[in-house]
């Protein structure tokens, strides 16, 4: 099963159960409260996911490690390498 198919199955399952509850498609005679809560769910879930995404990406960008030490170390090693290679006969 590809990821696309997994998503389609999952989304279909959620939408079907939402529709059944919200519009009383199977004549289940559920309490009014269920229907009131269920109706705005898809929109609510989308907005929540949107907020979660923004917060997560924002957090990850803010905490993205900057490797200043690694850059410095590399610069020094480059000098050392050039010296050593020159001694060994490399013509740059």
């Amino acid at each position: 099963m590809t990821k696309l198919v997994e998503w389609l199955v999952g989304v279909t399952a959620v939408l079907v159960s939402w529709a059944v509850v919200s519009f009383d498609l199977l004549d289940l005679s559920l309490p009014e409260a269920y229907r009131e809560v269920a109706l705005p769910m898809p929109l609510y879930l989308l907005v929540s996911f949107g907020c979660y995404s923004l917060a997560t990406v924002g957090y990850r960008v803010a905490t993205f490690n900057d490797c200043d030490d690694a850059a410095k170390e590399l610069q020094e090693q480059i000098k050392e390498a050039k010296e050593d290679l020159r001694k060994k006969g490399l013509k740059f």
Partner: protein
Amino acid sequence: MSSRKAAPASGVSADKYSVLLPTYNERENLPLIIWLLVKYFGESGYDFEVIVIDDGSPDGTLQVAEQLQQIYGDDKILLRPRAKKLGLGTAYVHGLKHATGNFIFIMDADLSHHPKFIPEFIRKQSEGDLDLVSGTRYKGDGGVYGWDLRRKLISRGANFLTQVLLRPGASDLTGSFRLYKRPVLESLVSRCVSKGYVFQMEMIVRARQLSYSVGEVPISFVDRVYGESKLGGNEIVSFVKGLITLFATT
């Protein structure tokens, strides 16, 4: 599980690590990356070879590689050039034909990947007998140098999208500093069809599909090239196209 053999100070280990180094116009960086590889492999005592796969660089990369071969020996530095720029997947296939190691490192030749992490990779691999070890910029003390806010935002945003759509079980899919067991690399390269960034992503996704074990090592990525080659609209578009293709086909 019995522990794997330790670093072969006694010279008993039969493991050999082949480093595949595709190059294009790396005349300045090639001596430096090879010097670093020799340094860190030498210090750790592991048996290794470096296979330079130059795609007909017009700047004389191959000539520098030949000098390095003189200095370090042609058992350690192998040259397997190609006539022109032919792409990463085929470079690996080409390199693999000539590799004599049972483990294969892939990495970039432009000094963004640092060989100091090689012992880490090897340790991680042997601890869990892993099929694949991937360097990650996004976890632990992994990170980058030389990226501005825009670049970081694009990187994290793209990675988030990838995680949501593909749920790959690895934090850094587009990274190209990796250690593979040789049969694993051979098997994966033969199945992957994408190009560029997406090729590296596809390798990990397919590894998961085939139930290969994947581990991660935090690495520092020092980007000195970014100043010259900004991440443009074209690359973003082709990344998204590739991501959607993987989403729909794997």
